[in-house]
């Protein structure tokens, strides 16, 4: 049976799509799943660096599409998990080098050898977004608790609905519990309410994410990282496990009054 194709998208740039793709790839691999991560951000590839695989790339997605290599040759295997693969974006080309049909073909082929195919979508709602979501069975929308990011997420949700593309679920990233407690940041309930979309996970702001990007070792591999744990929980939810949402639980009035933490 072909694996599930999941596209990670956002509308707004820089909210954590690539971070989420890398971490969910590892989280699913930790659970013993066969995973292929595809970098669809042609011209601005980053997934290779986040996964720490940049030195092992031989061919990229465009090479495969143009028939210069076989499918397997375009995959880079992660040494940590032999069943985790990445397909790199081409760095010196632009998004017009790929069609919706190309991307769909690549994703379907990856799904043949994987339980999960994760596609790291480019920012925006133009062509790059369109080819990235076209083959998806599920779209994970990453947003931050900020008015601008949520607004862009809403645009993406609206487009997916209007064009009857895949169902969408929300990842709320860079959540700062302390700021929410002080009533300075949008709270998760408000965001989910306004977007009227299912939540799959809340990922807290975590300084370790920054270092992880530098080292090519995503926080999902770090036992002590709070963001890592949140990503691992999302991974488990993707496999169908029922993992309760701890961070979402609302504070009681008394807790709020006394600012308990």
């Amino acid at each position, binding site marked *: 049976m072909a694996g599930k194709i999941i596209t990670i998208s956002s509308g707004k740039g820089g909210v954590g799509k690539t971070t989420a793709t890398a971490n969910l790839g590892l989280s699913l691999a930790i659970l013993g799943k066969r995973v292929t991560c595809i970098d669809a951000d042609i011209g601005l590839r980053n997934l290779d660096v986040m996964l720490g695989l940049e030195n092992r790339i031989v061919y990229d997605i465009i090479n495969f599409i143009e028939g210069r290599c076989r499918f397997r040759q375009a995959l880079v295997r992660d040494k940590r998990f032999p069943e985790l693969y990445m397909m790199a974006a081409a760095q010196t080309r632009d998004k017009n080098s790929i069609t919706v049909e190309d991307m769909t073909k690549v994703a379907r082929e990856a799904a043949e050898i994987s339980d999960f195919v994760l596609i790291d979508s480019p920012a925006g709602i133009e062509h790059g977004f369109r080819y990235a979501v076209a083959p998806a069975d599920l779209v994970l929308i990453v947003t931050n608790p*900020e*008015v601008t990011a*949520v*607004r862009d997420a*809403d*645009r993406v949700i*609206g487009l997916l*609905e209007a064009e009857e593309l895949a169902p969408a679920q929300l990842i709320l990233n860079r959540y700062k519990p302390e700021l*929410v407690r*002080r*009533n*300075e*940041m*949008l*709270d998760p309930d*408000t965001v989910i309410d*306004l977007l*009227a979309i299912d939540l799959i996970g809340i990922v807290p702001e975590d300084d370790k994410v920054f270092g992880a990007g530098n080292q090519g070792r995503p926080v999902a591999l770090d036992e002590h990282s709070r963001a890592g744990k949140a990503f691992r929980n999302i991974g488990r939810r993707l496999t169908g496990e029922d993992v309760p949402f701890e961070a979402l639980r609302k504070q009681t009035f008394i807790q709020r009054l006394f600012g308990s933490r």
Partner: protein
Amino acid sequence: MKLLDLFRRKKKSGQYIAAQRLRLVLTHDRANISPGMLEVLKDEIIAVISKHLDIDTENVVVNLTEDNRRTRLVADIPILTNRARKAEVRSKKGAPGKT
């Protein structure tokens, strides 16, 4: 700190303001109508209805409402009945009997 201050602060919190602005922006984005356009629409609605009915133009409210991603344009247009007209005349005269 007084309890009242506590509530007032909550109302003006960054979180509250962000939520209100977000709600408004999403509503207008989804309906694809700007706040300014809504005003134009309101004036045109008043003009059309006024041709047929005597309405209280001062108190017309035209708003977008949002319910589970479904947007509605809601217009509340008070019609001037005889009774409403009398009440208006009375209030303009400055409520006699009350000093």
